[in-house]
């Protein structure tokens, strides 16, 4: 008889065949974090370029001071659910501030971004409903869909025509269909064709949910994300986002122009059956949200860095994701090549994320660089130089 653990053996074997020694690109141990962009890994000083810390706010003095105060005044944790003892004044204030930031009547805070998707999508759709999602959506969205019992239909990535075809096949069911896309996709850093998707929704009906996890604080004049940048916020029924990227902490949220959003609190198990975010986390996020709104210069710096890195790597001949952005993805060949390249970067003082199939589109290994407003020009140029030094590795082996 098989043991409970046997089913993991093939994953474990594949990992050990690929990686025999530390430091490992999978679950890398960061020994020391010195600033938003510097750390120590395996005894080396490295530029942190795989962090999702898009605005560099993890060490912002005002965020840290607010977190300190909350820690002193309210303690280390709420030790309870939002539905019981875990709703402090600060949690409700943050919800009001999120609603105001997005100019929508309702906002709900969750304990992580993953749980925001589970808690919203997993509760909104029921067994008789249908969810139509972009094929490259994040795992949290797929997992949320599985909770619903709804019919789950994928459409080809960023293909509004394909979405339309799939909605047409659904006939009358589109009226209640939940269409799910992301503002910026986490693997290749490409943006959704949101105006085209909105036009399809207008023709066929349904509800539109945009996960702005990677675009909050990054896109739009006020940092509200892709829907703001594309001028289609009125057509987006639900926005989901996270506190763990541009806001530099952990947690998640959903906002909507449907006031009924508040009702999901009574039914959403990922909202009810977990402890609420710690007071210190909420305090730093409130300050970070204010910084997103009040310091657009951070967004401009992030984009200047992203453009410099993207075009620098493009000039070197690297195969990149389709457009510059806070995520700059370099497509490589085999997983073995990816591991060797990752080690090469680390030896040159650069830490990025190695992502392997099936988490990557197209079955390729990729180096996922995340850019921060806190990177200076010299750091961006050092990242480019490290990639340049390793380029011959790809030229010799090609895409295996």
């Amino acid at each position, binding site marked *: 008889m098989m043991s409970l653990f046997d089913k993991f053996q093939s994953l474990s074997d594949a990992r050990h065949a690929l990686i025999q020694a530390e430091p490992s690109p999978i679950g890398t141990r960061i020994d020391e974090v010195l600033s938003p962009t510097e750390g120590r890994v395996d005894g080396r000083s490295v530029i942190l370029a795989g962090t999702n810390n898009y605005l560099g706010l993890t060490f912002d003095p005002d965020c840290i001071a607010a977190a300190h105060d909350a820690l002193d005044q309210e303690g280390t944790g709420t030790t309870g659910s939002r539905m019981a003892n875990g709703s402090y004044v600060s949690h409700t204030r943050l919800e009001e501030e999120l609603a105001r930031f997005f100019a929508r009547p309702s906002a709900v805070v969750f304990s992580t971004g993953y749980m925001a998707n589970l808690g919203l999508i997993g509760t909104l759709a029921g067994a008789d409903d*249908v969810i139509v999602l972009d094929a490259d959506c994040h795992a949290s969205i797929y997992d949320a869909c599985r909770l619903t019992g709804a*019919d*789950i*239909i*994928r459409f080809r990535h960023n293909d509004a025509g394909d979405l339309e075809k799939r909605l047409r*096949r659904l006939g009358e069911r589109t009226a209640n269909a939940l269409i799910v896309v992301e503002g910026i996709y986490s693997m290749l850093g490409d943006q959704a064709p949101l105006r085209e998707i909105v036009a399809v929704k207008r023709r066929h009906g349904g509800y539109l949910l945009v996960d702005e996890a990677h675009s909050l604080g990054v896109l739009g004049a006020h940092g509200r994300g892709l829907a703001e940048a594309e001028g289609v916020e009125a057509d987006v029924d639900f926005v989901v986002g996270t506190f763990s990227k541009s806001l530099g902490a952990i947690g998640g949220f959903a906002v909507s122009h449907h006031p009924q959003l508040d009702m999901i609190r009574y039914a959403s198990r990922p909202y009810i059956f977990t402890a609420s975010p710690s007071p210190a986390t909420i305090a730093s996020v409130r300050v970070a949200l204010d910084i997103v709104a009040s310091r657009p210069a951070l967004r401009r710096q992030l984009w200047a860095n992203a453009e410099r890195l993207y075009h620098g790597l493009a000039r070197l001949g690297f195969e990149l994701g389709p457009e510059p952005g806070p995520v700059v993805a370099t497509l490589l060949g085999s997983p073995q090549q990816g591991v060797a390249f990752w080690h090469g970067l680390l030896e040159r003082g650069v830490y990025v994320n190695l992502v392997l*199939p099936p988490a990557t589109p197209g*079955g390729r290994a990729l180096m996922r660089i995340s850019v921060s407003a806190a990177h200076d020009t010299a750091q961006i140029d050092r990242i480019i130089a490290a990639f340049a030094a390793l380029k011959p590795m790809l030229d010799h082996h090609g895409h295996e």
Partner: protein
Amino acid sequence: MPQHEQILERLMAHLERLAPPDSNLHPDIDLVSELGLDSVKVMDLMLDAEDEFDISVPLNILADIRTPNQLAQAINKLLESQ
């Protein structure tokens, strides 16, 4: 309306594009454990099947499907229910 055999034949043609080269494809091959397709490739096969037969094949039926034969049966059932 295409019959089971015709559906299966078209599915096998799509599968040939997704399967590793020199795979020993047959209608009862287990798509994951024998053919080695990852979850994303199996979902991509569903996208192809949807376009081929102009139907919606919800991902939720995937849990019960291991082989091309079973997928063809599921598609046949969906077509008949239309």
